[in-house]
């Protein structure tokens, strides 16, 4: 019972942050509806009262209607159209089912890399390391997976090829993450700088490996630097046997990884060491833990998860390596992990939200003409509100919980030279 209440309490701020962000987004939609605005400006009374629209609404109502249209398109795009579900139920043909289910499967497809990378960021932050190198680790994981699949094509059976490709991607990403961890542990080089720099290196490595005319990776039929398509060689099997759906077992692996990360962090001594070193490096040292070991392990695991995301994107979702295959998921995952309070279960929820917004935003753009940028704006607002819980509490008049930890975990350690200040408790007067 207590567990349920605690979960609800933890979810309260992020949920209200999302609602608030959507409300602010609605205001922005109205404020950028210049046609209605100019009419309201010319004659406010008429705009409020008289009906001179074709659809029988006042101009003011029309502006609000714009918001409703946009958000319902967002929902339909993310989760599907009820009419299509009815049609599918009636006819029962795979084609109709595919049409009805495609929005929600695409949402899950979009969420998959967010889950992997959100977990990657969460695990590194928990250990006090800022892994900003998600993009590079995704790219390198994708490159390794591509090389394995194309290089071993025909030499091993397809399922083996698939598994080797995924593992290769995870290993490459893990290695790419391990390097900054190693540098920090051994020399104190700050991981924010090294991971950012290694993003550039990774991008250029991928660029280089797709150069040249006689390149075994490169798609011979293309002028741009992309790899041969992997589709004919191997593919991650789809969960649903429906035409034109892309949702594959990569999503299931992502969920399993969330469970695994949760188990690692909270049920194993290694996870305890990671968290202790992240929260309080001095106390960890006092307790006999090796801070350097935790840094390297956390960064390797973090990179491995990101690399696995890259492998699943390139083998499963896209089927072809290109320079922009990471889709900036490594950076977006930082915000996502903070929204999730660095909890694996929260990462899954936040990734579904990001997936729904990303995917639904496309239909919203098509149907209502509202640019996709509004979605980036809403996502940014969500993050901002989560980062400022006091603001959300103020807006929604909820009281600060007593003697409960922060909504998001405390920030990971700043540069090595300055240990993080002991974070004060939210309510010091709890017990005396």
């Amino acid at each position: 019972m207590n567990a349920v209440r605690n979960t609800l309490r933890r979810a309260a701020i992020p949920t209200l942050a999302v609602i608030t962000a959507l409300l602010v987004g609605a205001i922005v939609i109205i404020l950028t509806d210049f046609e209605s605005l100019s009419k309201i400006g010319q004659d406010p009374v008429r705009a409020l009262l008289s009906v001179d629209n074709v659809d029988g609404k006042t101009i003011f109502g029309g502006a609000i209607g714009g918001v409703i249209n946009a958000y319902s398109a967002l929902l339909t795009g993310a989760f599907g159209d009820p009419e299509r579900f009815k049609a599918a139920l009636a006819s029962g043909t795979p084609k109709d089912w595919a049409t009805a289910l495609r929005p929600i499967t695409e949402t899950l497809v979009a969420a998959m890399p967010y889950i992997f990378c959100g977990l990657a960021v969460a695990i590194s932050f928990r250990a006090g390391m800022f892994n900003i190198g998600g993009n590079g680790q995704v790219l390198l994981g994708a490159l390794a997976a591509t090389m394995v699949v194309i290089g071993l094509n025909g030499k091993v059976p397809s399922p083996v090829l698939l598994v080797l490709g995924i593992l290769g991607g995870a290993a490459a990403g893990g290695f790419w993450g391990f390097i900054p961890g190693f540098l920090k542990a051994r020399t104190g080089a700050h991981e924010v700088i090294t991971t950012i720099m290694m993003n550039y290196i990774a991008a250029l490595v991928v660029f280089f490996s797709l150069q040249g005319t006689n390149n075994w990776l490169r798609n011979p039929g293309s002028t741009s630097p992309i790899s041969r398509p992997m589709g004919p060689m191997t593919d991650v099997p789809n969960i649903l046997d429906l035409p034109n759906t892309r949702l594959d077992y990569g999503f299931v692996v992502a969920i399993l990884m969330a469970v695994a990360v949760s188990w690692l962090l909270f049920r194993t001594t290694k996870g305890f060491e990671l968290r202790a070193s992240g929260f309080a490096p001095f106390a960890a040292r006092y307790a006999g833990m090796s801070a350097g070991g935790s840094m390297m392990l956390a960064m390797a695991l973090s990179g491995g998860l990101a690399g696995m995301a890259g492998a699943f994107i390139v083998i499963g979702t896209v089927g072809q390596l290109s320079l922009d295959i990471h889709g900036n998921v490594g950076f977006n995952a930082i915000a996502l992990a903070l929204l999730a309070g660095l909890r694996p279960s929260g990462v899954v929820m936040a990734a579904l939200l990001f997936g729904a917004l990303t995917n639904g935003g496309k239909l919203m753009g098509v149907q209502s003409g509202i640019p996709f940028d509004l979605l980036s704006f809403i996502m940014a607002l969500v993050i901002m509100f989560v980062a400022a819980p006091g603001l959300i509490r103020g807006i929604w008049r909820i009281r600060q919980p007593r003697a409960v930890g922060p909504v998001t975990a405390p920030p990971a350690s700043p540069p090595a030279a300055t240990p993080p200040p002991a974070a004060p408790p939210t309510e010091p007067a709890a017990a005396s």
Partner: protein
Amino acid sequence: MRLELRDITKRFPGVLANDRISIQADRGKVLGMLGENGAGKTTLMNILSGLYKPDSGQILIDGEEKVFADPVGAIRAGVGMVHQHFMLVPVFDVVEAVALGAETVKNAIGTFDRAAARKRIVELSEQYGLDVDPDAKIESLPVGVRQRVEIIKALYRHSDILVLDEPSAVLTPLETEELFGIIRSLAAAGTTVIFITHKLNEVLEVADDIVVLRRGRVAGTADPKTATRQQLANLMVGRDVELIVPKGPAKPKDVVLHIENAFVRDDRLEMAVKGVDLDVRAGEIVVIAGVQGNGQTELVEAITGLRSLDSGVMTIAGHHTEKSSPRQVSDLGVAHIPEDRGRDGLINYMTIAENYILDSYHKQPYSKNGIFNLKAVRERAAQGVKDFDIRTPSIDTYAGALSGGNQQKVVVAREFSVPVLLCVAAQPTRGLDVGSIEYIHRRLVEQRDAGAAILIVSTELDEVLAVGDRIAVMFDGKISGILDGDDATYENLGLLMGGASFGGGVAA
């Protein structure tokens, strides 16, 4: 000026911090205000200095009611605060730091009249015996002198009522004596002084009147001429406490910790421990007394494996530990109560259960093959909370949400949850109230009687005298003398702490 507080009440969500508190302080008198942590002293002083507004009640100065909208209002009314944590700009010199916010200007542009400010500061320091170089940089001054600068700062603003919040917490015994001299001369010149502390000796020594707060209320008043420490302690805690935990004579057995000619460097690689010889035997409590910063911290870190010996010999129960890691030392059966529990001893953002296993999480029954047995962790932690009387809503509460005394109990409970061969306790009661101090001392004596070797580092002479079977005084990285607990007095300890040597000391 005469200060009177009438029925001051201040409520915070869930806490009645001040409950109808009435006190009076007369002109030229020193009012000692005693109280444990959380008794409401700080809230009351924040009301007096204009930081908080009381929910009800009155502040009267010379019989006239005052309402302070903000701290500036309080300063205008003549109330000056000297906070426990100094509010001085480190890179300023004394003149600038004192004048900041109350600068005298000498022309229309508003140029700072440094000469005038300096003149007044020199006058004030001469008048009250506050020996300060007005041109010295704040950051170059020792703590005791910084405190004098704070007092000058208050006087510079024409404060007739001076509030000192735990002023001796950061001072050496000698500096404290000097501070008392200053307080007396201030009072003699007509300043009303309110002296907040939880140290019993100090109020008895310097106060003219004593008021004791407990749980937000005035628990009683006392006359320092007739009151005893015991009476004051009982008033503070609300029950009979033992200021000196009863203990039988030590029965020392084998040497557990052996240190021979040890040299240890500090973080700046300067030699901090310069040739220490010390033996601690099973069944005795050895206290290292001394003013902070004479190498005690580095010595403790060297013993517990957080620092390596530069040279010398160190053995624990016969094992050489000169280069051992913290875990190797801990595995020998060494409990370590660290000096800075907020930094080293506890993780504020972890639960009590997690903190309880902080240095034994990798052992059975807490975990096996790297996987936790959460049931065992919770059971043991719950038992520890019960055994050590840790006041907490649950074992899932974050350690940072506990009071200082309860936090320290978590550390002690953890360290004593496994058999202890040697216990190294650095400042084990720093910042704790009388009740918690009694409790911690009791536990240390218990461990001694159970056969553990106990090494305590303390700067508090009361503590040193209360628990030490043998007392080693550390000065400038060396042991300047070792006394038997029965022979030690404030006087001979004070001399040794100041650097006097007893002809090479009595080797243990």
